[in-house]
């Protein structure tokens, strides 16, 4: 960005502002002579006294049309401005062709790409924030996201060394691995001489585990996401609980704007509780509260000037800890209001019944009631998909009954969405009488009766009983290996495979005793916070000997996921 000198304005593809916020804050951009920022929309560009206009956009045709419109209406007023365009994450000939057809390609001084495949979300988490990846792969047979994934992994390898072992399960995983191996051949000879950081790459298709994201996440972070939605590391919360309570006076006017909080492991307390089952969060918070007030009490013990000085030097840290504690106590209260409600409890009960295989082949009264009460459609779809997945498809009578209920209650246009869900195998008609799910559940121990929420000893704590299939597969891969579960793997869609990448001589890691192996787990099509929590739990298990870094096309939960698969005829959008 530094090379576009003089005053400039950036026109953002709205979708990119979030991810970019994680890399460069506005203040940083301002230091680099970015005078104004706009959101890309059709019509005329807002006026700004700048020499350069830079468009930051995803390579999408519809955006090209908007840009063309911008440029056209602009030219008449200021002929002296320079236009630049930066494609994220990659240049597209198709888009340039479009700009050419629109007759504006020549107006651009610079056309370049800003290669941003994997965005760091946290110390151990990378996401491409490619929202439509799952939909494109499974509904539209468009593998653009996989190409970006492979490219991103190549970049990662260029920085952190060739990953010697690649495992994978699923068609998309196979495709990505193939592209990676091909790209490696293409770059042969220019191999980097970096000691590999990762020992293993595990590529997992989202469609081998459709169940996990459908279930309600029960970790602290998972619940925040389920209830309020975390976007690009930020959550917006209802403001009431965060009103500044000044001592002595009751604050009368409550803030109306929602409270925006950044959530990541840089915040000590959050790092500690984010992955806990929500039922264990209360205890953790009160323990923390005691520690903090004890620390504040220390001041009474400070006698000498030196001791006081030391105490004062710790004050900022303590105050930050206290405000962090206050925030999370408020959030926990908000969440608790919801998790203790009957509706939440009933919903969870039904989910758990499905996951344990209770009455999955009948019309479920709760779903029926929810439809009758006109609960949000996505909630219905989540439950319905869950029942279908846990029953390896629904009986025709049940299936059609649900579908009719939905069409009649929410409108016939949803027939398209239902078709989509069918295409993605989230909903399906039971074709064989054999239901695989119980076999898979038993072999992989997906349901643990005695999940310990406070001091977990198994990943199943993240869903209070259900161990996410995807993470279980990861766990088994590390020990004892996939060979032990060949039969189950065959029941899941797509091939499973193992590839080895030759390392240049001399780069083979000499492992110290007790040193952990590192696995990069890449979820193609998205991953939920609960799954991340489960993987972090595995990393922390003392005897696992394995460290996990997580990468994905998109961070998701059941709601955002189903939403991305919904089809709305144009008239419904506006």
């Amino acid at each position, binding site marked *: 960005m530094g090379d576009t000198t003089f005053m400039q304005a950036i026109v953002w593809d709205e979708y990119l502002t979030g991810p970019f916020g994680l890399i460069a804050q506005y203040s940083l951009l301002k230091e680099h002579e970015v005078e104004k920022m706009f959101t890309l929309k059709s019509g005329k560009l807002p006026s700004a006294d700048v020499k350069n206009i830079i468009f930051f956009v995803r*390579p999408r*045709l*519809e955006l090209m049309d908007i840009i063309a419109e911008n440029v056209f209406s602009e030219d008449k007023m200021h002929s002296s401005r320079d236009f630049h365009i930066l494609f994220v994450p*990659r*240049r*597209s*000939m*198709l888009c340039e*062709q479009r700009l050419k057809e629109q007759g504006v390609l020549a107006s651009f001084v610079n056309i370049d790409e800003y290669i941003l495949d994997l965005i760091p979300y946290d110390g151990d988490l990378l996401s491409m924030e490619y929202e439509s990846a799952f939909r*494109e792969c499974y509904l*539209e*047979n*468009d*593998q*653009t996201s*996989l*190409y970006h994934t*492979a490219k991103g992994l190549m970049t990662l390898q260029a920085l952190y060394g060739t990953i010697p072992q690649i495992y994978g399960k699923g068609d998309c995983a196979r*495709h990505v691995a*193939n*592209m990676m191996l*091909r790209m490696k*051949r*293409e*770059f*042969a*000879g*220019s191999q980097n001489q970096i000691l590999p950081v990762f020992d293993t790459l595990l590529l997992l298709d989202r469609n081998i585990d459709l169940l996990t994201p459908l279930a309600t996440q029960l970790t602290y972070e998972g619940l925040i996401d389920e209830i309020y939605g975390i976007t690009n590391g930020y959550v917006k919360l209802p403001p009431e609980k965060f009103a500044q309570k000044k001592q002595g006076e009751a604050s009368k006017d409550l803030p109306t704007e929602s409270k925006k909080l950044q959530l990541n492991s840089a915040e000590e307390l959050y790092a500690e509780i984010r992955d806990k089952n929500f039922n264990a969060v209360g205890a953790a918070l009160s323990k923390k509260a005691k520690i903090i007030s004890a620390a504040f009490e220390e001041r009474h013990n400070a006698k000498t000037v030196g001791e006081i000085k030391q105490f004062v030097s710790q004050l900022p840290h303590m105050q930050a800890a206290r405000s962090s504690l206050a925030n999370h106590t408020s959030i926990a209260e908000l969440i608790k209001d919801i998790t203790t409600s009957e509706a939440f409890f009933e919903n969870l009960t039904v989910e758990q019944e499905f996951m344990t295989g209770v009455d999955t082949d009948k019309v479920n009264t709760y779903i*029926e*009631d929810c*439809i*009758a*009460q*006109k609960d949000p459609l996505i909630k219905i779809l989540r439950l319905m998909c869950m029942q279908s997945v846990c029953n390896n498809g629904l009986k025709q009578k049940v299936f*059609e*009954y649900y*579908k*009719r*209920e939905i*069409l*009649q*209650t*929410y*409108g*016939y*246009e949803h*027939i*398209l969405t239902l*078709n989509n869900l069918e295409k993605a195998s989230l909903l399906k008609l039971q074709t064989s009488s054999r239901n695989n799910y119980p076999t898979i559940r038993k072999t992989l121990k997906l349901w643990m009766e005695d999940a310990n929420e406070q001091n977990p000893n198994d990943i199943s704590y993240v869903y209070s009983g259900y161990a996410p299939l995807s993470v279980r597969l990861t766990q088994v891969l590390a020990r004892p290996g996939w060979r032990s579960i060949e039969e189950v793997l065959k029941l899941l869609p797509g091939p499973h495979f193992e590839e080895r990448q030759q390392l240049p001589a001399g780069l083979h890691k000499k492992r110290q005793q007790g040193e952990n192996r590192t696995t990069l787990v890449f979820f193609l099509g998205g991953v939920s916070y609960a799954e991340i929590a489960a993987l972090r739990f595995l990393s922390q298990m003392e005897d696992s000997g394995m460290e996990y870094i997580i990468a994905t096309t998109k961070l998701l939960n059941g709601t955002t996921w189903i939403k991305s698969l919904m*089809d709305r*005829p*144009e*008239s*419904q959008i506006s």
Partner: protein
Amino acid sequence: MTFITANWNPLGEAFYRKSELYEMCWNLRDGLRDCLVAAAPYGGPIALLREPVRRSPSSRPQLEIYSASGVSIASFPWKSGPVVHLGWTVSDELLCIQEDGSVLIYDLFGSFKRHFSMGQEVVQSQVLEAKVFHSPYGTGVAIVTGSSRFIMATNIDDLKLRRLPEVPGLQGKPSCWVVLNQDRQTKVLLSTGSELYILDNTSCTAVSLPGLAPQGGSIVHMSVSFSYKYLAVLTDSGHLWTGPSHLQDKMSEVDTKKLTPPKQMVWCRRPKSQQPSVVLMWDRLLMVVGVCQDTIQFPTEDQCVLVGEMDGVRIISSTNQELLQEVPLVCQEIFKIASMAPGALLLEAHREYEKSSQKADEYLREIKEQSMLGEAVSQCIEAAGHEYDPNTQKSLMRAASFGKCFLTDFSPGQFVTTCRELRVLNSVRESSVGLPLTHTQFKQMTLQVLIDRLVYRQFYPLAIEMCRYLKIPDYQGVSRVLKHWASCKVQQKDLSDEAIARAMCAKVGDSPGVSYSDIAAKAYECGRTELAIKLLDFEARSGEQVPLLLKMKRSQLALSKAVESGDTDLVYTVVTYLKNEMNRGDFFMTLRNQPVALSLYRQFCKLQEQETLKDLYNQDDDHKELANYYVTASYREKRLESRLSLLQSAVDEYNKAKNEFSAKATEEEMRLLRFQRKLDDEKGAGLLELSLQATMEALLALGLYKQAEQLYRDFRVPDKRYWWLKLKSLAEKEEWDELEKFSKSKKSPIGYLAFVEVCMKSNNKYEAKKYVSKVTPEQRVKAHLAISDLDGAADAAIERKNDSEIATVLSRCSAADRLLIERLNRASTAKK
């Protein structure tokens, strides 16, 4: 060997030596007389353009290209216009500057590459003189025209012509001029005889030479050093002025006592020169004029050409070639008679050692006593680098190796590198290769460039040997050579496509970094499409193959390669290309064979061309998608009639797709729409766009119970849902009597707890109570609690002897309900 100093001539404090590089392999009948000569620095090639004795259309001049050792590379009659000047570019291309200002570029082998012009005006005014010069920007050309204007191009590969300002009073050509490169600017320094001017982009400035004696006379010759840092100026009185080229100082002024202007004048210096000099050449005399005022004179037999190098001057005559240079300091120290430098002593020690004489020990001790052995070894190694004769190199290196034995912690790096480099240098100096590079030049030029030069000369095996010997990574070494070899090979017209492809595969294999698509592009350029396609097959990067395949109109192949690459943007690109190239039928057929491309194109159509999407589905008989398409389209339609007709099409397609459910559902939708319109028309109910459920809700709200009932029956709405709907709707409207009637119409499919709760939601405890008794025993506690009847709840719980229910009731009790709590506790303990 002993007489190493035999060809040394003292000049001031230093020595100059003139050593033979080659006996020239060429056989020039008329010597170098009457021809234009261009010899490139860094031991570059030599071009000669010999004017025929009589100029007539039938006798054309001959252009000859030789290696520096005189091996003929090319020779052909010159068929273009008269040439004013010849010059070489940094990448060994020959520039022939013609009188009309056009510049023709040939490669080393005399094949024409391209041409450019120095401007339209030159065609009229003609080129009087031209110079080719090198700068960090590349190779440049400067000319002076018949109208006394200077035109310059600093980089011929990125041609930008600059017309320099007019020089006041200049008629015809200047008496002499040079091109300077200062402060990242290219300028011309010229003399009209008495005046001296500097021309840059914008101005013409008169300058003078500091300290030039007034009787100096007018300037007849100028020369600028290899690095553009120093200037030498000769006047008609024979005075040679030298100084830095920014003209702020003077270094010296020497009277050569020669009044005739020399044929050539060239700087002779080396990096860290002790004693720089200027070499002047007359017909039979070569004079080295030191800045120190000393001179050396060599007689010459023959017409010669001087080639300035960064560390000396090459003197090319028709019979041999010599290198004139200042003897490097380290060589002086070692070989100077009676030198006591550590290197000299070490060399002597080694010599004695070879003779098995104990003197070796004495010499060694002497060096070691001064703790100079390390220094001695370094000196020998360095001197070996500067020596041209392999025997001298060997004796110096052996001495170094000998000395090294007595050192414990001497890094072998310098020794090993120099050994390797000397081996490389000796092999390229071979007369058959003909690159007389000095070690200093080699270092400046870098190995990369040396390999390039070998490759330009098509010494592929040697280049590859060298890369392997020096262990250059394949990517920068062997692969690069192979790449060049391959693109040269495809131009060999006498070989069949098959043979070339085979040879290519055998030699290149899958060497990293060799781009088969580049080679194929070359083959295609030469008109060998078939070969190009064969070669493309070897390309690992499918993406790379696509643009060329499209260019060659192999679009089908391009498509499958694009798909293979996984790069969807590339697939799109090919698809768009195909769409424009082919007729629709063929285009669709092509896509059909490429499912990936087809689905991408579908995506594209979904966003951009809905109509095409329909055609695509039609072609594939994809009835289900077609039906979905019609459904989607129906929502874009504003008019109900068209909407219904689209939905009817959807129904037909769903039927064809044997998707009974969807067909029925769509029919239902149509029925609902018709119903809604009817009611909207009749009652202005505003129902259109509502779902069935919402429609019923609206009807109930409007009190149109009969119509709602009708929908409920017609659409076979499940009882449960309908009951919920009606219950809520009646409660909302507070039609309590109606509600009670409804509750009694038949047994409620949703139970009666719902009635209680809904009534409570409307805050009507009175009505709610009516239904409590109807609630099933399992829900009775809940029902009582719903109306806040703790006693009732307690009774029900105790009656059912259900612990958890008792607990629920307890949890709702407050301290005031002490009696009740006791009762509940009793009941609970009694059970136990």
